[in-house]
Structures are given as C-alpha cells and as structure tokens.
C-alpha cells in the first residue's frame, strides 16, 4: 500500500513536470474543498460529480453549463488550465462512456462561456436535469 502511494506520488510529480500544470492538483486546490476528493460532494449542498458530469455533455446547453457554473467560471485558473481540468474531471468522475466520447474542451470556448457565468445556476441546472431525464426515458 505504501509502495503504491509512493508510485502514485512519483507519477503525479512526473505528470506535473511534463505538462507544467497538473489538473489533479488544480482540482485539489480549486474544487476539492467542497466536492471532496472522490467527487461525492455533500447531499443537498454540493452536487455529486460521480457519473453525472458526462450526462450534461449529452444534452443541449450541457457543455457550456460545466464552464459557466460559478465554481468553474470564477476560479483563478487560466482558460487553458480550466479546459484541461474539465477534461480531467470528466475522465475521472464521468462514466467510461463519457470519457471515451469526450471531445476535449478548447481554451477559446472556455474563455467565451466563462465570461458569462450563471446568476441563477439552480434554474439552469433543473432545466438541464429535466432534459437529461427526458432523453434517458424509454421512447414509446
């Protein structure tokens, strides 16, 4: 177990050195305080990321939603790092299907969307969840 942890630490450091910034570290510093290390969040207060991020990508408006939510849009990260962080989060917390189908975020679209963060994020979220539910319901 200790050897595993040591290897993980070495891998993490290597990744950070190779790309300048490590999305995992950005997640820790920008998101983990509320969404927690495993993405589970806090029921009723902080949304659970596990298995849910990819679902938003499947409905109209979902891709920009993940950028325009206050936590993402108003983070101190550059557009490039926010794009890399969102890709990492979808791979880490989304379903295997969502990870396989992921079209990586582009810095340009992140810049455009985050300039207009949601004032009423709950309303948008409810509408998107309704679309997700409607899309997953069996057709008759």
């Amino acid at each position, binding site marked *: *177990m200790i050897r595993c*942890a*040591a290897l*993980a*630490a070495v891998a*993490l*450091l290597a990744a*950070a*050195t190779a790309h300048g*910034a*490590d999305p*995992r*570290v950005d997640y*820790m*510093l*920008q*998101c*983990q*305080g*509320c969404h*927690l*290390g495993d993405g589970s969040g*806090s029921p*009723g*207060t*902080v949304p659970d990321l596990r298995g849910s991020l990819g679902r938003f990508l499947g409905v109209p408006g979902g891709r920009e939603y993940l950028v325009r939510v206050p*936590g993402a849009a*108003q983070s*101190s990260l550059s557009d490039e790092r926010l794009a890399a962080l969102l890709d990492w989060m979808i791979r880490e917390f989304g379903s295997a299907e969502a990870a396989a189908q992921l079209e990586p975020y582009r810095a340009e679209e992140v810049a455009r969307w985050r300039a207009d963060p949601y004032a009423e994020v709950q309303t948008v979220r409810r509408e998107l969840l309704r679309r997700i539910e409607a899309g997953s319901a069996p057709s008759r």
Partner: protein
Amino acid sequence: MSALDAWFARAARQLARRTSRRSFLARLGTLAAGAAALPLLPVARAGAVREPAPGEPDGSTPAGDPDDCAYWRYCAIDGFLASCCGGTHLSCPPGAEMSPLTWIGTCQNPVDGKHYIVSYNDCCGKNACGRCFCHRNEGDKPVYIPPKSNDIDWCMGRVGVIYNSTVAVVIGISTEKG
C-alpha cells in the same frame, strides 16, 4: 527487635479494625470494572490514525512543532489549533467531528522547500475550544471568493455549525504556490 514486632502487630490490628475483607473485594471489583471500561472512553477512539497522503512528510521530519502557531502547515489557518484542544494537527479533539467540507491551500515546508497542499478541516459539533488561537493568512482571499477564504465557518452540511477548532492535513504536493 521486640519493639519492631510490637509495632507491626499494632499496625496489623489497626488495619484489621479499620477495613474488612468485604471492602477490599468491593474496591477490587471497582478497579476491575473500571479497567474494562477504559477503552470505551472517547479518548481511545480519537486515537485512530489516518493513512498518510502520498508525499506527506512523516513524523520524523524535523519541520517544527505542531503545537506552535508558527508551524509551517499553519501558514493559512484561522482558528484554534486542534493539537492544543485535545486533538492533534491531524485529528479532532474527542467529541468533535471533522467537517468534510474545507478550504485548501498550499504551504511551503522550510525543510525540503516543497509546496504541500494543506486541507484546513474544521472540527465541529462541540463548543469553541478557546485556546491557541492562530491566525495566518498566506493565500487567503476575501469571503467573496469562498473556496479560498479562511474567514468562513466550514462547519456546515453534515456535522452542524458549532465550531471547535481546526486541523491542517497534508493531502498532496503542488509544483507551485496555490
């Protein structure tokens, strides 16, 4: 010699007059029951130690005193040190519960010069400790940037809002100050 004998005889008679075998058994019983109940006290449960984070300096790293506000991990703490309130810098005092929601920043370890990612979890559900107040603001931002502010009572959500003290847990290493 006879004086010593007489003294012991007198002492033994006095002891026999003052105590009974029944009282000895009662005291022995109390001791046995007390010893059996001792591990059930919250002190023993609070001693549970968490797994170290990858890259976390171990206890042998000569990096300062966790009971001192100047300790490197406390570079952005705002609260009472849990280590001074019956807990440690990694665990909450008995009777207080660690809030999962927290604020996270980095502190530089003066020994190896690395920036460690530190999670300042509040200990909640028990009245404020009131000892060893420590207020350092490296990387702290105003409350309108909530995820980066140490002025917030992070006792929210699952464990109630009563604030007791704060721990400083290393959760990783960063290549830059954050």
